[in-house]
């Protein structure tokens, strides 16, 4: 469908009148004197008789000028080709700025460049009563402009876009657009992406979606996972996953740098769409950087690095009360455990201890002060009814036939459900349910956890069961976990993992570029939402912590450059449409045609009518 934005410009067609007038007033031909026109007169007469169009041909210049005017008038009317239905008033344009949009094609332009070009075309073809709103779909969706028809503002916002080093949250962007639609209703939105989006996207759309794909398949390989696990021999085992896009192949080298010094390398052979694994042994700790060097074309550079900060390994210090010989014996049999009396990582006592420095405090045969009103103990027996098998502390621990010669029950008047809910409100979670009340409860606190066995192990068969040393082992692993010494994972770029500190305390974050920012812990002591847009080391300090977090892209979808041709949003499927603007402006083509006509007209007007054997006479 063809339309025009400035129909009033059609009045410019009246300029044809002065053009015709001036043409005939100022018709200028080269005057050439010939000996006689006798023959030429016959020729012209003959031509007029035989060619009815000769009269038209005589005024070729005039027709060229009129054609040029027509093209200029048409261009001024700003005609457009509308590829869709009726024109909309407001159109949010969501532009994917995820890391994969930085992938370069062979020609050197990124997918985001292509997307910018596409959106620039939409801005150029914007109707006078049409408003666009640009939204950057990145780690955190950002509204770049409001609904506006100011092309300069839109263009400026578009030019400011750069690919992020993180995956995009498309669902959040759609939610943002949806929220904008409540204030400024619209019927249709446009998503410009390389197709590297979740499938499906868990969001309900209240508007129609145009899905525009940019970019094409290209070769890329990147690090999609990087983590370190503590080995029993006081060393870290670093594991790296490398995945390739469907077009990638060839050799690659994985290099390990510890504190900036090369430590080891691995040669890899990439296969199209394949995945590779490599592991390194890292003695001690340090800031570890893993680099992937692909021999050949690699579309994305940001996924070729991953960062980890590995702490120095120390034995787990455990303090066990003398009244608990079974615990002491079981704990001393654990590898890399040191029984100490002071500064322990784990405290195992037959009562509630107040040592906050310990990561894990285990109270045996004691009821936490918060629960004394909920639980009562007495003579009798208790049996295990259910327990949280998925909890790390109870992994592989079988308690089915545990015999407890102690009656642990919810206080009178408090039922099973009410008691558990009340305990959770107080911060305690029931891990083992007895037939009358809780047998094992756990509590998460800042910098650690508390575990309370409400029965004494001496009055149960627990120390004699196979699960007891397993439980001890789980305690040690959990303590290491709480100290951050069991497994270190390269955090995906975007936001840093949540950190628990004292409520309300301030944490300073220094990013890889050296810029610092501060974050304040919430009432629960959690520091969340700290931005980590770039790969590298983020150093957190303050509130009694000194921590370094390694961040990398580590995203399979981004590195594989997967492409979703059909956007599935809940039950709606949106097929990608060719990357063409809704309204294709024609004025450029018309103006170019007018320029060509002008050149032709100039050539026709200035070409020498007679060459060589006749003479021009002054006019």
């Amino acid at each position, binding site marked *: 469908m063809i339309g025009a934005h400035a129909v009033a410009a059609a009045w410019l067609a009246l300029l044809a009148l002065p053009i015709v007038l001036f043409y005939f007033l100022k018709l200028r*031909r*080269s*005057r*050439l*004197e*010939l*000996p*006689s*026109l*006798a*023959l*030429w*007169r*016959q*020729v*012209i007469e*003959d*031509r007029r008789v035989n060619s009815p169009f*000769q009269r038209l*041909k*005589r*005024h*070729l*210049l005039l027709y060229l000028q009129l054609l040029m005017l027509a093209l200029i008038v048409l261009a001024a009317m700003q005609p457009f080709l509308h590829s869709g239905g009726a024109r909309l008033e407001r159109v949010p344009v969501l532009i994917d700025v995820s890391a994969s949009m930085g992938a370069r094609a062979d020609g050197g332009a990124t997918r985001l460049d292509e997307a910018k070009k596409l959106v620039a075309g939409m801005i150029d073809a914007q109707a006078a009563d049409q408003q666009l709103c640009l939204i950057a779909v990145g780690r955190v969706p950002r509204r770049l402009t409001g609904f506006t028809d100011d092309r300069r503002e839109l263009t400026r916002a578009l030019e400011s876009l750069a690919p992020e080093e993180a995956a995009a949250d498309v669902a959040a962007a759609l939610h943002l657009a949806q929220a904008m639609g409540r204030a400024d209703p619209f019927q249709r939105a446009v998503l410009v992406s390389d197709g590297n989006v979740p499938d499906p996207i868990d969001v309900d759309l209240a508007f129609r979606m145009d899905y525009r794909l940019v970019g094409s398949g290209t070769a890329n390989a990147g690090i999609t996972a990087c983590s370190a696990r503590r080995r029993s021999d006081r060393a870290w085992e670093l594991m790296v996953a490398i995945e390739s896009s469907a077009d990638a192949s060839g050799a690659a080298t994985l290099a390990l740098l510890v504190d900036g010094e090369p430590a080891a390398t691995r040669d890899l052979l990439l296969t199209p769409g394949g995945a590779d694994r490599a592991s390194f042994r890292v003695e001690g700790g340090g800031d570890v950087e893993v680099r992937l060097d692909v021999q050949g074309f690699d579309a994305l550079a940001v996924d070729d690095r991953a960062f980890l900060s590995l702490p120095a390994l120390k034995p787990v210090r455990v303090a066990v009360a003398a009244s608990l010989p079974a615990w002491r014996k079981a704990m001393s049999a654990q590898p890399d455990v040191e029984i100490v009396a002071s500064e322990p990582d784990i405290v195992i006592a037959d009562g509630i201890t107040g040592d906050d420095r310990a990561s894990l405090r285990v109270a045996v045969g004691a009821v936490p002060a918060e629960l004394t009103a909920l639980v009562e103990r007495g003579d009798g027996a208790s049996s295990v009814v259910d327990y949280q098998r998925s909890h790390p502390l109870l992994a592989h621990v079988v308690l089915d036939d545990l015999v407890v010669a102690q009656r642990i029950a919810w206080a009178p008047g408090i039922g099973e459900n009410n008691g558990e809910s009340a305990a959770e409100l107080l911060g305690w979670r029931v891990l083992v349910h007895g037939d009358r009340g809780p047998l094992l409860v756990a509590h998460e606190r800042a910098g650690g956890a508390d575990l309370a066995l409400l029965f004494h192990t001496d009055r149960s068969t627990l120390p004699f069961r196979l699960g007891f040393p397993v439980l001890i082992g789980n305690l040690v692993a959990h303590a290491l976990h709480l100290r951050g010494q069991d497994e270190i994972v390269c955090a995906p770029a975007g936001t840093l993992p949540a950190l628990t500190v004292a409520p309300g305390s301030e944490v300073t974050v220094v990013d890889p570029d050296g810029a610092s920012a501060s974050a304040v812990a919430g009432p629960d002591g959690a520091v969340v939402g700290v931005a980590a847009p770039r790969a590298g080391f983020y150093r957190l300090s303050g509130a009694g912590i000194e921590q370094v977090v390694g961040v990398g892209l580590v995203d399979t979808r981004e590195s594989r450059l997967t492409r979703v041709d059909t956007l599935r949003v809940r039950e709606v499927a949106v097929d990608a449409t060719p990357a063409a603007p809704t309204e294709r402006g024609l004025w450029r083509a018309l103006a170019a045609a007018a320029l060509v006509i002008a050149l032709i007209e100039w050539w*026709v007007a200035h*070409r*020498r*009518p*007679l*060459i*060589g*054997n*006749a003479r021009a*006479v002054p006019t």
Partner: protein
Amino acid sequence: MTSVARMTTLLPNELIARLERLRVQALRRTTSRGRGDHLTGRGGASVDFVDFRDYAPGDDLRFVDWNVFSRLGRPYLKLYKLEEERHLAIVVDVSRSMRFEGKLAKARELAAAFAVMGLHGDDRVGVWAVDGTTKDPQRLRPARGRQFLRRAFAALEGVTEAEGTVPIERALEELLNRGRGRGVVVVLSDFLTAGDLTRSLNLVAAAGWEPLLVQILGASELDPELSGDARLVDSETGEELDVSAAGDLLALYHEHRLAHQRRLAAWCARRQGRFVDAPASEDTGAIVARLRRAGWLA
């Protein structure tokens, strides 16, 4: 080394020497009453026998064939061809169209060539250049004998400007009005006129002149290189003609030019005349040689 002075600027001496041995060959015997060297169809006093006739009283006894009288006993008179003088009128077109591309110069050279042949051939040669301004367009009054050669050259050398306003058809009519005698008329022109050329030529032929038409054309007429839009101006009348895409018209122009030449040649064939085209760029000697091969000269 000695150099021989040129007799005229119009022709080299060598060509003049060659021309002196040539005569203009007429297709028909068109002579004047005056006594001359050209045989007529009528009886005369030449040495060429024609016929016998009966003697009539008063006839010159010198022409009685006495041998026949002795055999037959009756006097018969021997008749001989009559030799009369022939006019050779050379008409040079001096209209403005002749000033282009050496057309007038070529016409003067050819006129001089014909004058040489005529004066050496005992023709009564007259040169006409009708420009509409000169009172007497007859630049050389009919003269006979080679002693008038220099005067003929001088008359032609005096025709330097082609600024005449009289078209060729009117120039021929002027010849008929002022001229006397009969013979051969050599017309040196481009014959590019909007007037009725046929009528004038018919009058000339009817007046006893045998027309020899030499069309002299310049390069811009033989092979014009015209293209684009132009306003063409007629050099004689000042009329203007606008042409567009003139390059497309060239083929048509050539058709018309050739048709014009064919018309002139056909007319000459009907009137026992002759037509030849002579490009202005062609050497005069070459044109003379061509005319000789065509039987114009002998």
